[in-house]
């Protein structure tokens, strides 16, 4: 079994119009820039995949990555906790023009909803957001004298994530805080695409040190010297 593919274009080929796409990363750490840009390349060339729902903690920054997807007009909706990081111009413009929808989710609830999606838990209760506008319309319940909000799982058609090492079976490690949402998204998506800085043979990663086991991974492409979102933003890079 070898889950590696030989091009970024092949890796992202499963993303189609209207899909829900989870994209790993928090700030620049873990953003799979090359996978995102491969998706933009296809959209620019063919007009597809468009009308995407994108799940990420933020809503794009600068003129690369998710911001560039938004600028390209591929994104119909963002599901995120903080669409107002540094230079969120791309999202802000579209949002204020009514051209993009927003589902705002508290960060811990977003993480837990994605975790629940991967774990087969259709709903759970959390204290987060109880009594606030973000709980409006959601069922609430009392447990042990305290009030909680019922939240639903969140799943995706495809996840795009960035790993440090990947073996050919899909076992993954991450680099420092680039881990963030990616192990959760890998489990919550029907098809998980990984860009890995290095692809290794099975057995290279110690079984104790695997963070994402291979059964959550469907396609791997090696991107040997990946771009770092934060560095690109600071350099003022725009894509395409």
């Amino acid at each position, binding site marked *: 079994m070898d889950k590696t593919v030989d091009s970024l274009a092949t890796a992202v080929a499963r993303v189609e119009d209207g899909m829900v796409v989870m994209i790993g990363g928090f700030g620049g750490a873990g953003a799979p820039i090359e996978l995102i840009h491969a998706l933009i390349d296809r959209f620019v060339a063919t007009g597809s995949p468009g009308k995407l729902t994108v799940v990420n903690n933020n809503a794009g920054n600068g003129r690369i990555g998710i911001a560039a997807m938004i600028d390209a007009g591929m994104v119909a909706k963002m599901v995120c906790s903080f669409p107002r990081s540094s230079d969120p111009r791309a999202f802000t413009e579209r949002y204020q023009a009514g051209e993009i929808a927003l589902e705002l989710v508290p960060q811990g609830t977003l993480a837990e909803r994605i975790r629940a999606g991967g774990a*087969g*838990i259709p709903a759970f209760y959390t204290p987060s957001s109880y009594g606030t506008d973000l709980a409006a319309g959601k069922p609430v319940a009392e447990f042990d004298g305290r009030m909680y909000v019922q939240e639903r799982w969140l799943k995706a058609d495809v996840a795009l994530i960035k790993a440090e090492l990947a073996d050919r*079976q899909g076992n993954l490690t991450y680099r420092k805080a680039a881990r963030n949402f990616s192990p959760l998204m890998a489990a919550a998506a029907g098809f998980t695409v990984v860009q890995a800085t290095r692809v290794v043979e099975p057995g290279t990663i110690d*079984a104790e040190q695997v963070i994402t086991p291979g*059964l959550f991974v469907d396609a791997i492409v090696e991107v040997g010297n990946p771009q770092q979102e934060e560095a690109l933003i600071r350099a003022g890079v725009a894509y395409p």
Partner: protein
Amino acid sequence: MSTRLSNAQIAWRAAQDIEDGAYVNLGIGFPEMVARFQPPGKQAIFHTENGILNFGEAPPEGAEDWDLINAGKRAVTLKPGAAFFHHADSFAMVRGGHLDVAILGTYEVAENGDLANWSTGPKGVPAVGGAMDLVHGAKRVAVITDHVTKDGRPKLVQRCSLPLTGVGCVTRVYTSLAVIDIENQRFVLREKLPQLSLDELQAMTGAELVVPDSIGELIAPEI
């Protein structure tokens, strides 16, 4: 030719349907035997509830590491690409539908897909383990079993009489006499022993068999 398949032959037949690269959980006991019969070129990856993916055969006696065991508490080994994880992550894999196949033993299986494999009734100490999770844990939940009990009563029934493990969860049954799918709450015959007539098979089955125009011959090698 025997009038029924041996356990090893039933396990062999079940193993033939496992695709290369499939993620598989084998129930404790008899189902563990399926791992021995993977066809050449079709390498499955085995999951065990206690937190290992891609484990292999038992080590030689005396070489056991009792920190490296499967859900049946038998010593195992690792294959290249193995991973350890904790119990919540392990059952996230199960409950989240990330396994391709779960193969379980059973006391009874009903035409509506209900499974009873954890309790033979109120006497004794009840114990469930991971059975109730596994039945909701795979894209395909298959059962391997003798077609009838030791005293000749059908194990494939209209409705289970024993306490249920799960509702409407089984999709395929491999027995000592036949391969049967569960579709639209009916037993649909796919294969039967060639020497067995349809009437004979029906007589040993506790619910009506739907028989399509074309059914296969269930032939297993001598093992």
